[in-house]
């Protein structure tokens, strides 16, 4: 369970608000976050993994404060970035997954076995010894996901995981994410994907302006964007 208790974030240099005090509890298995660029939706997502910490208030994951127990929170919460290139550290696919396993699996043989299994599960078993630079964008995102899942998190936060992918990979990665048997919090610009969730948050100018049914949330977001674009033209 994820709890935001009056959590707010400000820009470190200017002190300008990025996320206004936010209070909500996320218990649903599929939650999507939508909003315009720079609205604060990624900041909201980053608070869950402890990548960002609130200046005021608290964010709790399974009762653990992300500020005090960052390490334990990150064991529970995996994070998938938009660009997988920055997420992949080791030279080959298998080695990158093995890096994720270092904290939990001490034996090297066990690590190799678990890494192969993680790659097989995601459909990259035949790419185990391939350089990460030779993989396509979609394969890299799958590899990043394999790295995240191999650490057996109970929550995955995905920040626009399909934005850089072509239609085929977008559908494939999207389907894999939605088939996960764990809680998924996805930040997305893909409104078709957003309505597949059980709950959707609309973020605008650092505040959650709608929270509820995905179909209504998308309608609210479209209306909001329409009003803004009309306002800009006027």
């Amino acid at each position, binding site marked *: 369970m994820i709890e935001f208790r009056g959590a707010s974030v400000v820009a470190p240099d200017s002190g300008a608000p990025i996320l206004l005090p936010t209070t909500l509890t996320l218990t649903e298995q599929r939650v999507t976050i939508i909003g315009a660029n720079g609205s604060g939706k990624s900041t909201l997502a980053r608070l869950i993994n402890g990548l960002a910490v609130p200046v005021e208030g608290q964010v709790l994951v399974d009762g653990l404060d992300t500020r005090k127990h960052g*390490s334990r929170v*990150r064991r529970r919460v995996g994070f998938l*970035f938009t660009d997988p290139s920055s*997420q992949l*550290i080791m030279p*080959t696919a298998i*080695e990158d997954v093995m*890096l994720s396993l270092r*904290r939990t699996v001490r034996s*090297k043989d066990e690590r190799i076995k678990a890494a192969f299994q993680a790659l097989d599960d995601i459909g990259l078993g035949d790419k185990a010894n391939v350089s990460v630079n030779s993989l396509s964008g979609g394969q890299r995102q799958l590899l990043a996901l394999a790295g995240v899942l191999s650490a057996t998190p109970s929550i995955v936060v995905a920040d626009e995981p399909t934005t850089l992918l072509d239609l085929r990979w977008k559908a494939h990665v999207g389907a894999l994410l939605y088939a996960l048997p764990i809680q998924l919090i996805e930040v997305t610009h893909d409104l078709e994907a957003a309505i597949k969730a059980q709950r959707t948050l609309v973020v605008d100018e650092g505040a959650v302006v709608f929270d509820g049914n995905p179909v209504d949330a998308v309608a609210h977001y479209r209306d909001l964007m329409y009003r803004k674009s009309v306002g800009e033209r006027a």
Partner: protein
Amino acid sequence: MYRDRRTPLHRAPAWSKMLGLAVGAVVVFQLNGPVPMAIAATTALALLVSTLPTPRATLRGGTTLAVFAAFGGAYHWILGDASRGTEIALRAVTIVLAALAVNTSTSADDTLNVFLRLARPFRRWLPTAAIGLMFSLVVRSIPEGARILSQSRSAARARGFSRSPRAILVPTALRTVGFALSVGDAITARGLADFNVEDRR
């Protein structure tokens, strides 16, 4: 270049290969004359072949090596010392071939373990896991840096600034910093920074 194989060099412990490479490099610098250097180069080539490397990656690494060795050797040939030119070219070839043999037969995971073990006595003062990770990141950043440079060059050309170094270098520098920040975020998100803190406890 690493490939999972079952060759004797693959089975050898990573530390012994690294130590062997360091000692071998010292010995190679003590050798004089083209004949001993040719024997050393042949031995290094045999070691590399024994690891069953992929032809493509070996060719890519080998071409760069051949160009550098040819330049070094040619310089001394031009100066009139053919024997010294051959010796220098073969020395470079020997060391790089031996390094390729170690690289091809040692996984990054094993390399990381060696660095972690070496740094272990200093774990109270040094972030040992971070040091190991740093070496992996350096290797990983080279192709990424080349990609950013190539994209910045194309963008500058598209805007008609192909002759302006500033139009290429400034975006390259800024995007490289951006990439470094993203990698930092990813390391934190994957809990690798926490791993380091736990390691020091």
